[in-house]
């Protein structure tokens, strides 16, 4: 069982990869943007993908160029078994941390 903790953005990327049938740069970026409402730069996404790849959580396959004029290749991303374990762990931890917690009732103090 991999015990690699994931940063927030890494977790988003992993979840997007897990969710998407065909996970590649544009799709992942869009998925995260749509679900989180956060703007994602393609550079940051690829840097994160590379880091996750180095950690052994993701694996990649470059597709052949799309069969259209000027068609380019896509970099498809897949979870590795370690990646899936890491994702389990991260989401479980989050769930346990938030379990029974009503954020509306949380006491806050203004400065």
């Amino acid at each position, binding site marked *: 069982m991999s015990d690699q903790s994931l940063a927030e953005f890494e977790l988003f990327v992993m979840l997007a990869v897990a969710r998407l049938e065909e996970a*590649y*740069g*544009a799709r992942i*970026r*869009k998925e995260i943007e749509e679900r989180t409402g956060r*703007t994602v*730069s*393609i*550079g*940051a996404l*690829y*840097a994160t993908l*590379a880091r996750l790849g180095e950690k052994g959580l993701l694996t990649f396959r*470059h597709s052949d*160029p*799309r069969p259209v004029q*000027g*068609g*380019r*290749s*896509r*970099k498809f991303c897949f979870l590795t078994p370690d990646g899936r374990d890491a994702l389990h762990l991260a989401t479980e931890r989050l769930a346990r941390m938030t379990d029974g917690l009503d954020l509306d009732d949380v006491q806050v103090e203004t400065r």
Partner: protein
Amino acid sequence: MNAPWIWRCLVSWAAPGQDRAAILSDLEEDFEAIRDTEGQWRARRWYRGQALRSLVPLLRLRLRVGARQVAEARREGVVGDLARDLQTGVRVHARAPLVTSVIVVSLALGIGATTSVFSFSRSILFPGHGGVERTEGFVSLYTSDDGGQPFGTTSFPDYLEIQEAVPGLESVAAVRLGVVEAVQDGEAQRLIAELVTGEYFPLLGVSLPLGRAFADEETRSGDAHRVVVLGHHVWTGRYAADPGILGREVILDGEPFVVVGVAPESLRSRFLQLRVDAWIPLGIPGGTYHATESELTNRRDREYIVVGRSAPGISGEQLQAQLDGLAGRLRTAYPAAWTDDRAEPRRLTFLTEAESRVPPPFRSVLGGFSLLLLAGTGLVLLVACSNVAGLLLARAHARTREMAIRVSLGASRGRIIRMLLAEGLLLAVAGGGLGVLGAIWAAGRLSNVPLPGDLPTLSLAMAVDWPVLAFAALVATSASLLFGVAPAVEAARADAMRPGTGSLRTTTRRTGLRRGLVAIQVAGSVIFLAGTALVMRSIESMDATGSGISTESLAVVTREIPEELSGQDAVAYFGGLADVALTDERIDRVALASVVEGTPFFDLTLARIRVPGQDDVREVVYNAVSPGYPELVGLQVVAGRGLDATDVRGAPRVVVVNESFARRFWPDRPALGRQFTVLERRHLSTPEDTVPVTVEVVGVVRNVRNTAESEGVPFLWVPMDQFPVRMAVLAASGPSGPGAAALALRQRLPAAPGQVSLVGPSPHLEVAALGTLGSRLALRGLGLAAAFVLGLALVGLAGMVSFTVNLRLPEMALRKALGADPGTVVGEVVRGALSPVWKGTLLGLLVVIPLAYLARSVLYGVSPVDPVALGGSLVLLALCATGTSLVPALRAGRADPNRYLKGD
């Protein structure tokens, strides 16, 4: 595709190469989607935003990826180059399999031969401690011999005196080497045994891996038990390391012995570090090799190696002083036994464990031998290296063109050297590996010296000498690497415009060097071949029984008369045994003797005689024999008569002597009819033997040589009837050979209880074998080296001739085209090939003849310029050289003009 090109370019520049296409593609996809829904302008603005925000992370990613790639590339670059070079090397070597295999074999032979010859001599010259686990304080003790040489063996009574009377020694043990016959599953086998006193094992500090050493009471003289400690290899080999061996019985010399222990693997004999098969307590009564009464009581019977351990705090001087004191007292008490042949008192000396490993009398001989061996090994290595060098140079020349092309295509010199080094490395690894395997194999072979007859194989403590192996491997592989890069030197000069081979414009540059190398190799082979031939001839002449007798066809058995019979009954008793033996159809002739010339016991029978007119008492070897014995062993009477049936008890006492005897005592007069007095006979004799008797010489026989050393020893034959013995040898021959006769003797004459018999065919061979042991060892080393070196030289010659022929093929073809006879071409090539051969031969002879004169003392009956040995080796060399050069020469004769003339 309307993405703003400037931002596209920016992204493209910033993105790492592997992801560039995918990133641009992703941006494109989104750009198109936005453009389609929100319009061109928004899409462009989006694109710009993406590009700007991605710039920093992409650049960082790119740097990270780049750094990783650089590191990987650096790692892979060197390995990749090496891998490529090795692949190329394999291809280059595979293209010329013959040359490659010859180089590899040369390297292997050079490394293997050097290592094994050196290891072999080292094992003899610098043996290990041979299993002595406590070396400090361990000493070997010596009694000076008849000639006054200080390092002789010691008699058993003197050993007892040393034990009693030298307080500086806390413990003393006696040991002697012998051969016993072991019978297992009906199969008889000779074993090398050491007969030891009880102190022996504790004194060496040996702990037995299994069982125990001998208990005190088991080794006490006259009361010894029949127990045995087996050699480790016997236990693991014959008995499959069975721990249940303890308490089991083994049959040695026909008697059951109980196994009480197994010796550690490292334990070896103090003599030449021979491997010992069994240890037996000294003093078991009866039996040939076991201590007889005489051996244990007679001070003149010096058979024992005595070892001791000095008491703590005793200095060498103190110990020597105590030994001197004892020697003085012994001299006073036993003046006869303690006076040597020069009428000098005998001395007692000691050597420390390390000093005693090589017996001092052998030291100088072995030292010279080792120098020769060292020189020899150096020569082998030199020949091997010059061989490799010659072949690599030849190959370098053949590759001139290839190198020129590589240079013209831009290969740097360093790159080419790296490539050639890789090729050399391949050769070195292959040759070195084979060499190591060869050395290990040869070490196993060389350490076991087989002796003819059914003597046990002598096993020396020899192991591969790893430092030498490393040195030889270093030298040989350096040669292959050094000469392997020769093409690079060539490449520096290479002119791509002037291709090297296959053209009429060839060069004979540096063929001189190659010829020189061949000459060196040939000289080396001449030295080794001639040396081997001389030693072989020497052994042959020692083995040959032409100098006297032929006992190879005899079977012998030793028998002792039962205790209750007196010496007077001996003749009748032994005669009865002979009659029984003759009833077997496998035996047609039997004779009796106290010894058979050439058996291991021949010098056990000594007589002291006084010749009238000469003052001193002399000790000579004598043999009491039955009528018919001289004929059976083929003694040749040169004057007078042999002994016959008329020489019985009561008749005038007669003797037959050998030529040496006659010459020694009556140098200027005929010996026939001379009389002298036999004062005393020793060993195997009856009590009457102490009475002096006068005898007359009735015959002279040709000298019999038993060992290399015994030529010229005075011998004396007396009729057994007149000089009875208690123990005799029955020698028999039969129509079906000595093996069948020996079997018949064994069956017809079973040993009486308490008697031990030694039965075996060909006793003569055995002693000849022991006498020629040194020569045999030398022959093994030399023969091996000769075979290696000749092989190498022939290979070198073949390589050189082949190379020359390759160079000159176009020329030969042209000459053929101009009408030259192929025979002339072949003849010329062979002549050219043989020119370095005869030069090398001359060089070799110039070295080997003075060497042979220096080593004259070890050559028995062979002249240093023995025509058969020298001529034979030269003829062999000439035949091999001609044969070797003929193959490429014939190729030259078949050269096709059309093929070579087209190119020019």
